[in-house]
């Protein structure tokens, strides 16, 4: 059935709201996935264009639930295609892909902090699903249910995934830091 102009207008208004509310989320997710601003911009653009095409159906099927997981799932799928098509691997975050129009405080913060730089490097060593779950939780502030919807998993499986991700990250960070003074004293005894 043809859509009425008023329905289409309301749909576009809703899409505008979604865009304004989650542009930063999609961009942050994309950036932490691909590791540079140039490709993060492309990924964000493609995500919103694809979302625009399928927005009516998504809204109809959402039953009033938030659409952020759906949006992030689009970005997630596009990022997977990005690696597959270009045979790329995630780059170390916070690279210098090109000049930025505005300074990004997060980058400045990370550049000045070895511990943050180290933890980001360790995040990149995690398996894809664990890395993505951590990005969704800590960069986007998504709860377990939202992450589960974005990754197409159950709430329980997502909780386990997050727990294991943090555990593995702890191990990687500890390994990267090397033995502490206390460890060396203990070893000498």
């Amino acid at each position, binding site marked *: 059935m043809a859509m009425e102009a008023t329905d289409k207008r309301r749909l576009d208004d809703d899409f505008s709201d979604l865009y304004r509310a989650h542009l930063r989320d999609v961009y942050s997710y994309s950036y932490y996935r691909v590791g540079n601003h140039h490709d993060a911009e492309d990924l964000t653009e493609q995500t919103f264009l694809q979302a625009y095409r399928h927005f009516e159906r998504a809204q109809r099927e959402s039953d009033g639930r938030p659409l952020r997981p759906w949006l992030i799932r689009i970005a997630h799928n596009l990022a997977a295609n990005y690696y597959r098509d270009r045979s790329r691997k995630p780059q170390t975050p916070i690279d210098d892909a090109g000049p930025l129009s505005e300074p990004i405080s997060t980058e400045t913060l990370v550049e000045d902090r070895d511990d943050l*730089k180290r933890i980001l490097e360790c995040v990149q060593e995690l398996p894809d699903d664990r890395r993505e779950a951590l990005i969704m939780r800590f960069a986007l502030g998504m709860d377990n249910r939202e992450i589960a919807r974005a990754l197409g998993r159950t709430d329980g499986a997502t909780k386990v995934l997050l727990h294991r991700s943090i555990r593995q990250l702890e191990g990687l960070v500890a390994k990267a830091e090397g033995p502490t003074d206390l460890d060396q004293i203990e070893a000498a005894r």
Partner: protein
Amino acid sequence: MAAADVETLLRQALAPIEPPAELEQRLEATLDTLVERAAGELEAWELSSMRDPRNWPRQAARPAAAVVVGSAAAVGLVALRTQRKRHRRRAASSSVLDLAERTLRDVASEAGRIAERRPGRR
């Protein structure tokens, strides 16, 4: 390192990143292209086929759909721009709406003209 420490560091290291201003402009430009495509659909519509009244119901659906797509996309853009108070691009958006309105008027005018030319009405 304790889990709590790792989570604290993760929150700091994975802080949200503001998208560059160029991204918003590029995204709007791409949406503009969608609007132009809808307007192009209107221009490509063959008015000559309207001369045969048997084609009217079928032909009418196509430009109407293009008008809906074009107008609605423009409305979406206007909403975004209003929010961001960027007046410089608002003019371009309203011209697309104007184009759609003018085309609609032309279609109506042409349809009326064709209807008047039909045999039996003279």
